[in-house]
């Protein structure tokens, strides 16, 4: 009996050590890596390295809505299946990366080309850069040096950066976006936390609609029609559902509990 007990104990210890090692292997991305998307639907088949998309750089210049609603990028990596021909015709990346559109008084480089000579090959490497030793034109540390610091994710408080006027995300692209009425200001509301003692969530509808519009979240991510009828569990959110669609990959991560659970406990 004693032997069996020892064997079971050893087995549990072994499982514990193995799982602890696996957890340790999941390293947290570095600030400049957070939000990075690797796009490889057709790249390698075309003899090019997969595309490394830096969310941090693009979110500093454009709203989420502009890219994910007006330009039509899906919310999941690889789902859009962007082709070079789409970019050449001025869609997806080509909506801005067309050699004509400007950002910060500088022309944005052309994304894809019909003819690939030695000169164009160097250009391709600006995006098709996975595994290549490319020095990026926009260095994360240099660009974000003056931005207010955040605790996790990119290590930047993007919301504060916008409030302080350090970033001014563009929400309209000529020839792509539709002219609309300005969005009416949405009211913030509180969501009750399930665990006793945990501060309730103050959901800032205003902040979210300014960057996302309405159709990016409703109904695809949040299908509940009436407030309070849908229940969201943290395990589902950590799996990438609901708030987790953005707050596990691009927006500040879920480990920054106090950013959402912010209502003082009575």
């Amino acid at each position, binding site marked *: 009996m004693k032997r069996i007990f020892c064997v079971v104990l050893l087995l549990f210890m072994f499982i514990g050590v193995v799982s602890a090692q696996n957890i340790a292997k999941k390293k947290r991305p570095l600030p400049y890596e957070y939000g990075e998307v690797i796009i490889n639907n057709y790249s390698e088949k075309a003899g090019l390295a997969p595309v490394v998309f830096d969310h941090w750089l693009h979110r500093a210049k454009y709203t989420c809505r502009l890219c994910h*609603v*007006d*330009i*039509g990028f*899906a919310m999941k990596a690889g789902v*859009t*299946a962007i*082709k070079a*021909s*789409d970019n*050449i*015709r001025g*869609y*997806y990346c080509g909506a801005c990366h067309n050699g004509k559109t400007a950002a910060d008084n500088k022309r944005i480089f052309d994304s894809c080309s019909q003819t690939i000579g030695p000169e164009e090959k160097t250009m391709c490497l600006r995006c098709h850069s996975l595994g290549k030793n490319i020095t990026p034109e926009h260095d994360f540390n240099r660009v974000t040096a003056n931005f207010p610091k955040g605790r996790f994710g990119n290590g930047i408080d993007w919301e504060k950066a916008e409030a302080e006027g350090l970033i001014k995300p563009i929400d309209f692209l000529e020839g792509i976006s*539709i*002219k*609309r*009425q*300005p*969005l*009416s200001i949405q009211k913030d509301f509180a969501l009750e936390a399930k665990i006793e003692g945990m501060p309730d969530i103050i959901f800032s509808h205003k902040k979210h609609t300014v960057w996302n*519009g*309405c*159709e*990016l979240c*409703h*109904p*695809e991510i949040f*299908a509940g*029609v*009436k407030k309070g009828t849908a229940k969201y569990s943290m395990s589902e959110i950590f799996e990438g559902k609901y708030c987790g669609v953005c707050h596990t990959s691009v927006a500040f991560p879920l480990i920054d509990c106090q950013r959402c659970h912010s209502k003082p406990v009575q």
Partner: protein
Amino acid sequence: MRKIITVFFWFVAAVTVSSITQWSWERALMWPGIANAQEDWKNEFEHVCSKTQDAMALSADQLRNLVARCDKLKPQIEKLDETQRKVYLKRLQLCRDLLFFVLESKEKK
């Protein structure tokens, strides 16, 4: 003679359009007609989907009408070339789903 010149210019225009837009020959030859049709669906798309920002302020009837217009637009967009079809079907879907979502929330109130 005039007819020949017209056909020649039509042909040159088709070649130019085909090379710029990467359309097929048949499509490029029907270019003027397509351009008009394109304007029609795009205008309708822009008109309908410009309402998403103030959807909450619309009545149920207005929303129902907009959803119906989205449904009518879909087959027209499905006829477009691959890239446009992919982009605009996604955009139309987002727009239609939101309008329907707001309509549902109004009806459930």
